[in-house]
């Protein structure tokens, strides 16, 4: 039976949304899976591990409209390992961005496609999540679960596809909700809304 390696590419992996998306995938996948987290020191180890899997799923956040440095660093190392290897896993991704428009992930997904093409990897399924910072704490979490189930099934069936999900809110409602989200975040740290809104830098 094929196996899935889930690779968390969030720099705050242990507390990340990506971790939760990865856990959902592991729970819905009919295939056996293992999860690893990219750290500064384990690049070579992960590259070696990948060779034992038929599917790799990178789960990570959008950073500055593209691949976060933590994952970019790993891809650069993996590319060197790939030149010496003949076997190739299917390359899948679950990318989540903070903003409500899932399409803000699109350029990043094109970069992944470019990476695959350059390294003769077959791009498989992609799940693009908008409002990925907040959605898991809302009733809309069920939509994410539903999409990750489809994503998981597409891997088993080799029917690769691009999926997209975000919170079904108007932009106005999203902005209101996100403002409240961040005010509460600050409050937990003892920081007021006015302090958070400072215009001075440093």
């Amino acid at each position, binding site marked *: 039976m094929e196996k899935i390696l889930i690779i968390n590419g969030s720099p*705050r992996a242990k507390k990340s949304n990506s971790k939760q998306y990865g856990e959902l995938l592991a729970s819905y996948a009919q295939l056996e899976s293992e999860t690893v987290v990219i750290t500064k020191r384990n690049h070579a180890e992960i590259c070696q591990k990948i060779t034992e899997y038929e599917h790799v799923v990178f789960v990570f956040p959008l950073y500055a409209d593209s691949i976060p440095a933590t994952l970019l660093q790993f891809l650069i190392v993996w590319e060197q390992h790939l030149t010496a290897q003949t076997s190739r896993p299917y390359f899948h991704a679950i990318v989540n961005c903070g903003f409500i428009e899932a399409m803000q992930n699109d350029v990043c997904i094109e970069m992944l496609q470019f990476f695959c093409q350059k390294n003769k990897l077959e791009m498989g399924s992609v799940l693009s999540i908008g409002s990925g910072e907040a959605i898991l704490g809302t009733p809309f979490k069920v939509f994410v679960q539903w999409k990750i189930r489809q994503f998981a099934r597409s891997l088993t069936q080799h029917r690769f596809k691009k999926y997209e999900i975000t919170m079904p809110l108007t932009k106005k409602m999203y902005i209101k909700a996100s403002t409240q989200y961040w005010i509460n975040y600050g409050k937990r740290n003892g920081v007021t809304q006015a302090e958070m809104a*400072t215009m001075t830098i440093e």
Partner: protein
Amino acid sequence: MKLVLSDTALPLDFSQQADASYINLDELKIATCIGCFGCWTKTPSKCVIRDDATKVYPIIAKSEHVIYVSKLQYGGYDLPMKTMLERAIPTQQAFIRLVDGEAHHVQRNVPLKAATIIAYGNICQQEQAIFERLVARNAHNMNFASVRVIFTSEAQLETVVMEEVAAWKKS
């Protein structure tokens, strides 16, 4: 303020000019962003990692003209520039507004910028197209009023940068 932010050494010296800076990322120690949101919710506008990035993002913020010089990697910025751009989020607030109908963060005291992005290396057409789309997206998040992308080879880089800097001086 004018800024040349580069991932490689360039023969530039703005020490006699009060309104221009040249920063070579290759000489700085900059760790990757850890995504803690401390700069939005704990010590607003200050990154919790007190390395060289804390000297760079205030300069990015106050510059009205920027030239970013970076090698490309998979149609995006290579690691040094990407790492720095991620560390620049203290210049924004956590709060979100609409820009051209899309969600983006509220900028702190950051003037609109005229940006020139010089991407160098052995860049194929497909990679150029991806990078152009990336820069167009960045324009919203990085407060670019106008932006121009120039592709060049590593061999031609110095000449291209010098031409751009000379054009600045005239403007």
